[in-house]
């Protein structure tokens, strides 16, 4: 089966920034992404868990976008505008998709 090259961008960011990030991505034409809850993890501030969080202040989310390679720069610029001073990780990996017209 034929596959097409694409970029998979994964952004782990504070939950309070979810809407701002989503709107920022939509502004640059990235309308396809998936937002996943994050159960917990470990980072520069030590271990944390979603368990027992009464506020969205310390929760994290994971945003996954798969896009055509030529759209990567505008997506990263938009993401950086939101991430800026906030806790978060952005990673980009090469991937292949089956239906190129969808990305």
């Amino acid at each position: 089966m034929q596959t097409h090259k694409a970029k998979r961008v994964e952004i782990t960011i504070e939950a309070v920034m979810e809407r701002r990030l989503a709107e920022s991505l939509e502004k640059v034409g990235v309308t396809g992404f998936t937002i996943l809850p994050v159960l917990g993890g470990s980072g520069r501030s030590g271990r944390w868990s979603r368990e027992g969080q009464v506020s969205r202040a310390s929760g994290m989310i994971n945003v996954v976008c798969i896009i055509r390679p030529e759209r990567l720069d505008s997506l990263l610029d938009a993401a950086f505008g939101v991430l800026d001073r906030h806790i978060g990780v952005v990673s980009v990996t090469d991937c292949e998709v089956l239906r190129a017209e969808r990305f």
Partner: protein
Amino acid sequence: MDGILALAAENLISPIILFFALGFAAAFARSDLSVPEAVAKGLSLYLLLAIGFKGGASVAAHGVDATLIMSLLAGLVLSFVLPFVAFGLLRMITGLSVIDAAAVAAHYGSISIVTFVTASSVLTAAGLVFEGYMVAVAAVMEAPAILSALWLVARAGRPATGSHGGSGRGLDAELLREILLNGSIVLLIGAFAIGAITGQEGLARIEAFIVAPFQGVLCLFLLDMGLVAGRGLRDTRGLLRPGLLAFGILMPLTGATLGLVAGGLLGLSVGGIMLMMTVSASASYIAVPAAMRVALPEANPAIYLTLALGITFPFNLTIGIPIYLAVAKVIFGG
């Protein structure tokens, strides 16, 4: 003094406090006891609806007077002023940076609605009445402190701190909307308005839902809050230096004193004064932390969450509330 101790002891063996203590102890013992996230959310919605509606129905029964307006104004002023007091105290007794101190101060100017609900429940159990509009006073005290804290940071020229450096987003229109329209405030004010519109007749219709089960639901909710506070404190207790620990106890007592003065000047009932003291003494751990993450991302969330939720919230629940009630009773009778 004996009266205060007797009241404190009585409060400590009430079911709501014992369930809170159970959750706190279970978290420290690393038990797997937990309240599912959706259930905890549902319980908090119930409590907000019930306390808001009952407050509104009480206002409908007793009417609107000048004291109501003055109490709302007093709440607004207290919420603006308390962060300055907290900021000064923090800078004096802890080594916190301007940004961390301002972020913590915002929490102490705002309120904890769970502490308010618990205090009103203690008043009901003691057979004391209080002004129904105190719910609205609590609601107006939620947001102004955030503005004071941001002003404190702006005045200091937003010095870069920590590894992130630079400044945060500050207060934009979107953040302001999120703060003012956060779900808890909307439900609390909405239920208050519905209670005020439908009055005692409306209360009679849903009494079986919002009055009788209230204490039981509060027990379950405080069990969850005990688990949350215990876990938070267990995981971050290394952060708590003596100065911060002292602040977590001194600040609610300072806030309560200002609340006592305000309540006394307003001529509120003993129950109303105790609630004014309680909201002034409490610290937010839901609305303000989220706002601080957006507006002041350089501030360390572990400090303000641990202080508000791990120190001040349990202090108010177990020791603070009986002290505030006893002091209000001793000074203003009842």
